[in-house]
C-alpha cells in the first residue's frame, strides 16, 4: 500500500466519524438540550475521561468476554459449516436448528443462561458465541457451495483425490467468505457481551456501570460508556480487517511474499 491509499483508508473513516460527532454536537446546540437529557459529544467524552480509572478495568473484562466468545463462536461456526457441507442429510438436519437459534431473542435466552451457567464469565461467552457462530457458519457454507463447478471438473480430470481437492480447493475457498462472516460477527459480539452483563451483572461491568449512571441521572456518563462500548466493537472490526489483509494477500498484492518454509511443503 502506498501512502496515498493508506491516507484514504485511514483518513476517510476518521472524517466520517468526526462528521457524526459534529452533527450530534449541532443538534444539542441548536435545540439547546440539557446535559442530563442528552449530552453533547464533548460532555460525553468528558464523562468518559473522568470515569476512566473505573471504566478501563471493566472494558478489559468486556474485551475478555468478547474474545473468548468470538473465538468459540467462530470455531463452532466454521466446524459446523464444514460438517454440514459433507452430506445433504446433515445439512438438512442442522439448518433448521441454525435458523431457530437466531430466531430466539437473545435477551430472552440471557436470563435462563445465567441461571444455568452462573454469574461468572460463561453466560457472556455463550451469548457472544451464539451471535458470532451464525454469520460465520452461513458464509462458510456459501463459500463451500460456490466453488466453481468447472474447477472441480478440472480437478477431477486431473485425477485429484477427494481429500486433496477438499484441502487445496474447497477449504481455501472459504477464507474470503469466512472473513465476511467474522466482520459481521465482530460488530455484534460486543452487543452480546453487554446483554450478558446486563442480565448477569453484579455491578462490576460496563453494563452495570451504565445502569448505575442511568439511575443517578448521570447522562453524560451513560453516553460516554456507550461510546466506549462502540469503540470496542469498532476495534474488533478493525482487528478482523487487518487479519484479513494480512492473510489474503492475493486480493491486494501482486506478488507472493514467500515465507521461508512455504516453498516446498505443499
Amino acid at each position, binding site marked *: 500500500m502506498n501512502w496515498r491509499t493508506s491516507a484514504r483508508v485511514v483518513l476517510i473513516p476518521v472524517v466520517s466519524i468526526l462528521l457524526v460527532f459534529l452533527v450530534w454536537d449541532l443538534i444539542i446546540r441548536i435545540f439547546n438540550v440539557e446535559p442530563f437529557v442528552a449530552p453533547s459529544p464533548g460532555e460525553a467524552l468528558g464523562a468518559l475521561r473522568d470515569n476512566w480509572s473505573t471504566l478501563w478495568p471493566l472494558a478489559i473484562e468486556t474485551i475478555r468476554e468478547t474474545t473468548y466468545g468470538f473465538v468459540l463462536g467462530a470455531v463452532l461456526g466454521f466446524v459446523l459449516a464444514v460438517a454440514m457441507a459433507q452430506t445433504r442429510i446433515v445439512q438438512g438436519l442442522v439448518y433448521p436448528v441454525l435458523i431457530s437459534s437466531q430466531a430466539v431473542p437473545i435477551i430472552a435466552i440471557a436470563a435462563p443462561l445465567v441461571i444455568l451457567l452462573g454469574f461468572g464469565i460463561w453466560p457472556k461467552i455463550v451469548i457472544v458465541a451464539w451471535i458470532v457462530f451464525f454469520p460465520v457458519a452461513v458464509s462458510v457454507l456459501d463459500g463451500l457451495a460456490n466453488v*466453481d463447478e*468447472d*474447477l472441480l*471438473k*478440472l*480437478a*477431477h*480430470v*486431473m*485425477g*485429484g*483425490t477427494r481429500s*486433496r*481437492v477438499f484441502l*487445496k*480447493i474447497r477449504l*481455501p475457498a472459504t*477464507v474470503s467468505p469466512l472473513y465476511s462472516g467474522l466482520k459481521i460477527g465482530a460488530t455484534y459480539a460486543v452487543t452480546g457481551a453487554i446483554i450478558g452483563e446486563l442480565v448477569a451483572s453484579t455491578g462490576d461491568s460496563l453494563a452495570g456501570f451504565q445502569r448505575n449512571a442511568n439511575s443517578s441521572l448521570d447522562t453524560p456518563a451513560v453516553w460516554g460508556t456507550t461510546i466506549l462500548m462502540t469503540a470496542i466493537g469498532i476495534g474488533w472490526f478493525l482487528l478482523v480487517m487487518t487479519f484479513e489483509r494480512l492473510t*489474503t*494477500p*492475493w*486480493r491486494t*498484492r*501482486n*506478488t*507472493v511474499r*514467500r515465507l521461508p518454509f512455504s*516453498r*516446498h511443503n*505443499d
Partner: protein
Amino acid sequence: MTAKLAVNECTKTFGPTVALASTTLAIEPGEFVSLVGPSGCGKSTLFNVVSGLLRPDNGRVEIDGVDVTGHSGHVGYMLQKDLLIPWRSVVDNITLGAALTRGVTKADQTQAVDFARRYGLGDFLDHYPHALSGGMRQRVALMRTLATNHDLLLLDEPFGALDSQTRLEMQQWLLEVWSETQRTVLFVTHDVDESIFLSDRILVMSPRPGRIVSELVVNLPRPRTLQQMTEPDFIAVKRQILDLLHGTVTV
C-alpha cells in the same frame, strides 16, 4: 504403431437427445487434431468422454492402447476459462495437478519454474493470477496442463475468450510449445482459421445427432507462419470447411 488416442464407436445420449452418435477416431502420437463444428454438435460430449468425465453408453476409449473408458486422470485438460486459483501463485498454479494427486515435490517445482521461464512467464513466477492479463493467464493454464505430464492434451476453445490480436499471438506460442514438448493435441474451436493454422488434421462435426461428418488433412508446411493464412492453399482448406459447416458457400 499404437494410436495415442483411439475412440471406438462411442455413443452418448441424454434422455431423448443423442448428444453423440457412434463416433470413432484415432490420433497418432505427436499429432495436432482439431474438432470444429457449430454449438450443440457434441464436441463437449466427445471431450468429456475422452477426458473420463463422462462414461459413454457404448464403445471404448483407449490411450496408448489401454482402455480408460470412464476413467479420469489420463489427459491434460484445459478450458476457455483459465480456472486459475486466486490464492496460488503462478508457479503454484502450474503445480496444481501434483498438489491434487500426490503432493508437490521439489522436482515438480523445478519443472514448473522451467516451463514458466521457457514460455514467457519468467517475470511472473510469484505473481498472483489477478495481476495477469487474459493472455498470460491462459499461458499459465496451459503450463498447468503440460505439468501434469500427460502426452495427450485436450484443449477446449482455450483462446475463445481472448481478443483477436492476443489470440494470434497465443496460437503461434501454442505451436512453439507443442513442437518443443512433442505432445499430442486434441483441440476444440469455433474458429475455422484457428483450426487450419494449428492442425495436422481437422474433424468437422455436425449436430442432431452429434457426429463427425468429415475429415480434412491440412498439408501446409510447418513451422506455420501468419503469411500462410492469406495464401491460396489455406483459403482452399477454409472454403472446404465452410462448405461442410454451412452448405455451399460462394467466397
